């Protein structure tokens, strides 16, 4: 299968300013030399704790934030080299569903009007009556009724709002959708509904997803391949079905161990101590060295590079577990 998206050496850093004259007090490397590719029809998961750069990565891919360096090739075109006008047109092929369904719609717009907006923005013209039909079909596609179109966002539940967000993103028939924690604000039963919906849509519309989440169980269930990020760097790139069996990076293993199974007979064993360190002044060596239980002197001095594993994944560790 060919690659739909190819990211190489993508980096972005933010200056942190403080004080009266907004003096620069430091730089946070939010995304640091990240490279990966997504095949057509694949679901790639990105997992990590807060501050790992996963949401920044999503915004970089859509060029909502400008990267410092690197390249993003989508469908053979480098979108970083594209002029603004062309980019705004190209955006119809790559879309994003945001984390918080409660604030993802203009509160003054009815659902119908919100759903019309993508067409207006991309100058898609409709014959009389054609637009209503199209939007009713979109609402049905995500499991809502055409009647929901008359409602304002505040009248819908979180799950319904997230369905509307998905409908809005599907309006322009994109090939690639970035899902930034689409279920993090929802209840588990609603999360399951949304995940089922996405599974169905992927099949029917032949979509490619980048799925961002902090929930490793969810990611490993929903995705084909998973990228594990820590402090702006990829530490592991692994096929979803080998996560439970052969995680190569100690951090991946720690994430697995901190999952609470809904099963009292499986109490979580060892847990990772400490918290994600401040993103200022990253350690010289491996980003995970300050919390890793297998740490060796070399880990603190030399940064491990991503290298291939037997199963075709990648890991950045001097002493991978497998």
């Amino acid at each position, binding site marked *: 299968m060919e690659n739909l998206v190819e990211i190489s050496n993508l980096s972005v850093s933010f200056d942190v300013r403080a004080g009266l004259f907004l003096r620069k007090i430091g730089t946070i490397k939010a995304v640091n030399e990240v490279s990966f590719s997504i095949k057509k029809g694949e679901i790639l998961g990105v997992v990590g704790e807060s501050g790992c750069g996963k949401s920044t990565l999503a915004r970089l891919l859509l060029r909502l934030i400008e990267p410092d360096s690197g390249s993003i090739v989508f469908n053979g075109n480098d979108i970083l080299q594209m002029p603004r006008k062309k980019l705004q047109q190209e955006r119809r092929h790559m879309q994003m569903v945001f984390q918080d369904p409660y604030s993802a719609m203009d509160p003054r717009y009815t659902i119908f009007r919100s759903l019309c907006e993508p067409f207006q923005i991309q100058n898609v013209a409709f014959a009389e009556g054609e637009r209503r039909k199209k939007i009713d079909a979109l609402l049905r596609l995500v499991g809502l009724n055409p009647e929901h179109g008359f409602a304002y966002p505040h009248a819908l539940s979180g799950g319904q709002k997230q369905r509307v967000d998905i409908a809005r993103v599907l309006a322009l028939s994109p090939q690639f959708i970035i899902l930034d924690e689409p279920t993090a604000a929802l209840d*588990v039963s609603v999360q399951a509904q949304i995940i089922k919906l996405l599974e169905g849509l992927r099949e029917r519309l032949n979509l490619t997803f980048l799925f961002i989440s902090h929930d*490793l169980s969810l990611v*490993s*269930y929903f995705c084909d391949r998973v990228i594990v990020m820590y402090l702006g760097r990829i530490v592991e790139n692994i096929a979803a079905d080998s996560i*439970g069996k052969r995680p190569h990076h100690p951090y991946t293993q*720690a994430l*697995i161990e901190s999952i609470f199974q809904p099963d009292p007979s499986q109490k979580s064993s060892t847990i*990772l101590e400490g918290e994600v360190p401040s993103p200022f002044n990253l350690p010289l060596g491996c980003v995970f060295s300050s919390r890793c239980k297998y740490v060796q002197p070399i880990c603190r001095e030399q940064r491990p590079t991503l290298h291939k594993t037997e199963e075709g994944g990648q890991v950045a560790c001097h002493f991978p577990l497998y």
Partner: protein
Amino acid sequence: MAFLEVKDLEVEFQVDKKPVIPLKGISFEMNEGEVLGIVGETGSGKSLTAHAIMGLSAMSGGKIRGSVKFAGQSLLDLSEKAMQSIRGSQIAFIPQNPMTSLDPVYRVGDQIMEGLLNHADLSKSKAKQQVLDIMEKLNIPKAEHVFQQYPHELSGGLKQRIVIAMGLCANPRLLIADEPTTALDVTVQAQIVRLFKEITVSKGIGLLLITHDLGVIAQICDKVAVMYAGNLVELARIESLFGSPRHPYTQALLNCIPSIGMKQGSLAAIYGNVPSATDCPDGCPFHPRCPHSFSTCESTMPTLIQIEGGAKVACHLYQENQE
């Protein structure tokens, strides 16, 4: 007699001059040193249960009915003043969001100490020593130093530890924690959950843990109450609940949780929405979404009854077997 006994607890609000009852006749009891989890989705009434026990619903204009007996006293009959002295000293509450439950302008140590001085007659230096002891017990590194810091200087996990320290400092006998780990990263959540377990075991205090996360429940609770649309639908020991869930809602909820190694496409979902308190269906509130529902379910609300194995369940499927 049980340590905490909640009977037919009900809360009523007035919305547009119409009565709305988001909490309908909850009954359960818990013993000292026990960890009881209350699990449910948005709108299930789990947080409201905690607020009603603490007598906090009255403040937001709700009427509380039923009875709450705690260590022999009937809490709902107490005056607001008497209740205030119980809150914080005998029952401590740990709120949902550690980020907003600390006052940004005071040093965290002073905030913990304030709670202690409110309820105990201590000198400042003694109080400080006690606070430092608690902080150390909660695995707060460099307690002396953290004591002097302001909330914004601390990480999320540390803030939550401080909030827990505030709850624990007056030596309460019952700790009520409302989604204490929801705002935290997974690795930190694991640490905090373990901490809760250690505290309850070592101090022998009761913990009422309110959460939407069945994983957390399975890790630390002894018993669990499942709530749906303001009703308690199942109450059981965790081995029984996770091993053989009885209520169709509990069964469905457990099937909604993805896990590592699960095959793509095998996740189950409950269709439809949780009913809102303003238009709850007649009969069992779960019947429109229940795969086993029959005619009785549409008209009559099942009562919570004990079934074999010690679990209690509110479902007509089991009531028929009893008769």
